[in-house]
C-alpha cells in the first residue's frame, strides 16, 4: 500500500489538508485564536488590574501559547504519526533556542551581579 502512496507516512510542514473545508476552518480558527491571544496580551500589558510583577511572566506565557497556535493551525505541525519528523526537528530547535536564551541571560545576569558592584563603574564600563 505504501509503495503506491509514498506520502502516507509523512507530510511536509505547512502542507494544506486535502479537504478544502477543514483546511479553511483550520486557518480561520487559527486566526481567531491568534487575534484573541494578541488582544489579551495588549490588554494585560496596559491594564492596572493585575498584579504588577506577574504581568511579564503572563505575557511570556501568552506569547508561547500564540506560537503554539501558529504552529498547529498555520504550519499544521500535529502530533500525528505522519508528523514525527517535523515534530522531532522542532523539538531540537526549541531545545537549542532555550539553551541559547536561558544560558545567555543567566550567565550575563550573574556576570553583571558579580563583577559590577558599583553603579558608577557600570556607567563607565557597561553602558555604552
Amino acid at each position, binding site marked *: *500500500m*505504501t*509503495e503506491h502512496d*509514498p*506520502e*502516507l*507516512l*509523512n*507530510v*511536509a*510542514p*505547512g*502542507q*494544506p489538508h486535502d479537504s*478544502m473545508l477543514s*483546511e*479553511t476552518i483550520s*486557518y480561520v480558527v*487559527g*486566526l481567531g485564536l*491568534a*487575534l484573541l491571544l*494578541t488582544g489579551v*496580551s*495588549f490588554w494585560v*500589558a*496596559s491594564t*492596572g488590574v493585575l498584579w*504588577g510583577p506577574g*504581568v*511579564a511572566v503572563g*505575557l*511570556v506565557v*501568552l*506569547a508561547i501559547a*500564540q*506560537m503554539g497556535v*501558529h504552529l498547529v493551525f*498555520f*504550519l499544521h505541525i500535529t502530533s500525528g*504519526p505522519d508528523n514525527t519528523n*517535523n515534530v522531532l*526537528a*522542532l523539538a*531540537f*530547535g526549541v531545545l*537549542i*533556542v*532555550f539553551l*541559547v*536564551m536561558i*544560558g*545567555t*541571560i543567566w550567565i*550575563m*545576569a550573574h556576570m553583571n551581579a558579580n563583577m559590577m558592584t558599583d553603579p558608577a563603574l557600570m*556607567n563607565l564600563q*557597561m*553602558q*555604552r
Partner: protein
Amino acid sequence: MSTISETPAIGLTHGGSEDTGLGHRGPESKSIVVPYGFWLFVLSDMVLFSALFATYASLVNATDGGPITNQLFDRKLVAIETVALLVSSFVCGLAMITAKRKNMAWTQGWLLLTGLLGLVFLSIELYEFAHMIGEGAGPQRSAFLSAFFTLVGCHGAHVTAGLLWLGTMMAQIWAKGFRQDIIRRLLCFSVFWHALDIIWVAIFTIVYLIGTLP
C-alpha cells in the same frame, strides 16, 4: 527513546503497513524532502533569532544615559503592525488552499493581499526606525539601541526578503502555471512567512510589551 525498535510497531498500527521506514521504500518524494529541508532551515533561523533575543535581553538596560524603552515605543503602531502581519499570514494560508486547487485568479489575489499587508507592516516599521533615528535614538546611541535595531531590523530584513520572494513566486505561477516544482516553492514560502509571524510574536511581546510596562 528506543525509536528504532518501535518503528515497525508504529507502521503496523497506522495503515497496516509492515514498512520499517528504513529500507525498501527508499527516500521520500521531493514534495516531502524539500519542504522538510526548508523546515530545518527555518528552525536554524529561529536559533539565529534566539541569539539576537539573548543579546537584546542582556543589553536592554545598557542605555548609556540615552532613551529607554518606555520613551521610545508606541504600542498603537505595534498593534497595527501585529495585526497586519497576522492577517498577512492568514491570507497566505488561503493562497495555499486555492493554489492546491490550481485556481489562478484567487491564488494571485490572495498572494497580492499577503504582499500588501506585508508592505503595510514594513512601512510602519521603517517609519518607526526613521522616527527613532531622527530623534537621535539611532543604533549608535547605546548598546540597548544597537541590540534593538539588530533584532528588529533582522526581522524586517527577513520580511523584505519574503516580499521579494513573494513577488517572484507570483511571477512564476503566472508564467509557468501550477507545476509541481512551483507548488513546492510556494509551500516553502508559506512556511517562511508563517515562521516570520511566529518570530514577530516573540518580538512584540519581549521588546514592545514587556519593554513598555509601567
